[in-house]
């Protein structure tokens, strides 16, 4: 008998755990990581990809590459890499690893006319960021007033930056590596996205990243000192269509929740930040919504809700 009770208790605890919002949040793993990288070299079949395009663009800007921006790691690209490595005292392997990327960053940064960001005055008010994916720029606000603008690179069309209202959740000053300086992660629930420096400075001003926000290394160091964990970051720009295929409930996260939040706001209800999380603010908004339209008094966004909001 007692075994049965223990068994039942375990089952109930398991059910409670697996349906609790905290558990759901923790187990909904990011489906995307904007920091993916690989080593590049000449091989058959030839390597292709956006990273190679960026490599070619950087080497071209530095005068080492004269071919087409083909995104293919061919003989011309291989030779250009070797020339760059020789010129910079690196082993001329023709293989691009972190060390080569870091050197490209350094040389490219020196050759670029950049803002003298390190001399900028620190914002005195509450800082918030707007990343304009259309203009490829970041606007830093201090107490709602424009303090400074930085050029950025945003996600390319196949890996767009996450549109929404986020917050910085971690800061890492020693992150560096082959990507550039500093790392400020955003609380995007469906992937690892953040703001960081870059070893591809010529990509700044373009849609080039895997969804992260790239900045010049010099700029990102300045920004790093201006923001804190919790600083709000709004990203606007193009995004892929989102479809809602099921009812939405408190605790859920995702792009569909984000769309729902945006539609609530468009209709005059305040879900708080449009951050893809069906949290307290969204619950308040759906409560008000259902009350005023005379619908069932619960917090579930169902078909009636979607019809009223014009999502269906």
């Amino acid at each position: 008998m007692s075994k049965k009770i223990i068994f039942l208790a375990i089952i109930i605890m398991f059910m409670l755990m697996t349906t609790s919002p905290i558990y759901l949040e923790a187990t909904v793993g990011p489906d995307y990581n904007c920091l993916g990288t690989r080593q590049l070299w000449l091989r058959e079949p030839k390597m292709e990809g956006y990273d190679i395009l960026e490599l070619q663009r950087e080497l071209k800007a530095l005068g080492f590459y004269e071919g087409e921006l083909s995104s293919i790691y061919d003989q011309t690209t291989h030779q250009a890499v070797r020339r760059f490595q020789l010129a910079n005292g690196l082993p001329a392997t023709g293989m691009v690893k972190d060390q080569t990327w870091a050197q490209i960053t350094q040389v490219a940064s020196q050759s670029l006319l950049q803002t003298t960001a390190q001399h900028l005055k620190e914002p005195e008010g509450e800082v918030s960021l707007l990343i304009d994916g259309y203009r490829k720029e970041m606007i830093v606000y201090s107490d709602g007033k424009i303090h400074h603008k930085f050029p950025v690179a945003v996600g390319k069309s196949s890996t767009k930056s996450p549109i929404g209202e986020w917050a910085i959740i971690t800061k890492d000053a020693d992150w560096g590596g082959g990507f550039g300086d500093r790392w400020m992660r955003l609380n995007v629930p469906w992937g690892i996205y953040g703001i960081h420096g870059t070893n591809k400075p010529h990509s700044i001003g373009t849609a080039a990243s895997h969804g992260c926000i790239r900045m010049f290394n010099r700029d990102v160091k300045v920004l790093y000192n201006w923001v804190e964990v919790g600083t709000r970051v709004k990203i606007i720009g193009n995004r892929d269509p989102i479809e809602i295929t099921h009812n939405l409930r408190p605790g859920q996260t995702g792009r569909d929740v984000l769309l729902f939040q945006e539609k609530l706001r468009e209709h005059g209800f305040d879900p708080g930040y449009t951050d893809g999380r069906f949290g307290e603010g969204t619950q308040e908004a759906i409560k008000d919504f259902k009350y005023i339209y005379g619908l069932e008094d619960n917090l579930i966004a169902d078909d009636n809700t979607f019809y009223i909001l014009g999502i269906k």
Partner: protein
Amino acid sequence: MWEKLKFNLSWAVIIAIMLLITVISGTVTLFVKFRTESEFSIDPTIELAPNQVYQITYWDYPLFFGLEDDYQEFLEGAIKEFNKFYPNIEVTYELLSFSEGEAKLKNALAEDRGPDLYHDIFGAKLISQELQLPVSPFLNLEDEAGAKELDDYDPLALQALSGKEEIWGLPTWLVPQVWVGNKELLAQTDLELNKVVGEGWSWQELIEVSQRLVEEDKDIIFNPHNPELFYQLLITAGKGEWLSAEGELLLTEKDLTKAFQFLEELRASDAFPREEKRMNEKLLPYFWENQAAIIAPVNLWLLNNLYQRELKEGVELTLLPPPSPSKLGKESVPVEIKSLLLFRQEEYQGDDHTKAVYKFAQFITQRKNQFLAQKLNVMPAYLPLQEEWSTEVRLKEELKVQLLDYLQRGTSQEIDSFIKFDLEKGFKEIIEQGYYNFWFEDRAISEIVTEMMVAFERIIAESEQRMSEN
């Protein structure tokens, strides 16, 4: 003689005299206080002091949800415009949450930090016996030509706000209670739609329509979570008033049984979707997918959403009056009234302050209401605006004609007294529970109704006991 009197005064007499004085003075004090309270009156002729700044607070709701305009902007513009006429009346506003606004108001009034003016969009009408102020002194004030402002407001709206010789709010809009039909699907049932719109229809006619809809595999959807539908059925059955002036229960077991039986008949004829308990989830999907021919209840806000969506969905709407048990002629249509309610603070700030509040309420209902009423597709209660509304409102002609027709046949109930109104609020909770039990608890109608009647009687008895104790 004085000496003799002085000598004869015993301590007992002195104490008796002192006690008498205490009793008399206490009685006089109580009388004066009672007289002041019971004869609280407002002098509507009082002038605003030109050099005094009147600070008034206004609580409203963000009404333009789902619309392009920003209500906050509208309100700030209105206040600015008002200040051109009354620069010494400072209006501070607050926009409330729809779901929590009424509770917030009640709590605030209980703690003596309520607003001066409240936009009663939910039709609560009477909120605080102690602090709510009547607007009738201002409405009844005659101008030099002998005209009263009262005559400028729709009588139906005034009636709904009248009780004990006072009018308890300045009416803003009239909203006929309608059901929404899919015109094309209803046409397949041979229903004479024009007749229904023009004269009303009976419960039996609706049952017949539902049977024809079943043949076509189409549905009717009633939201089982919204008891407004049941109230509408009671009103069309002539049972809009649940208590007599003497406090006797007017609602009978028979009335409730009849209304539930009507719903039961619809249920038995398979008028509702198969998953009846969850039919509310299909309310809009089925309507827009041409599966539901009638949906109800539909409040003003949902109706506006349907108007907007009609343009892109290609489903033609028609507005239906809630049916009556038996059609005897032109059937009346229940009409809801929205209004602005005035409140005082426990420490009365004076008639001039009240007049300043009234002036702002008047400005909203008369000067700004046309824009609001057109935007929200509701008839303004201020009569001089009604004709313009009829020509300017951006509604499909057919729907507009239907609304106007229903307003002409509109009916509303007087609110009588605060006590009665409070009791009826208690009744509503009981009806809500009964309505829920009908749809979700699979219980016999007789059982549900008996339970409701017992609860009504209990509330009345409790109220009587409270009154006798006081």
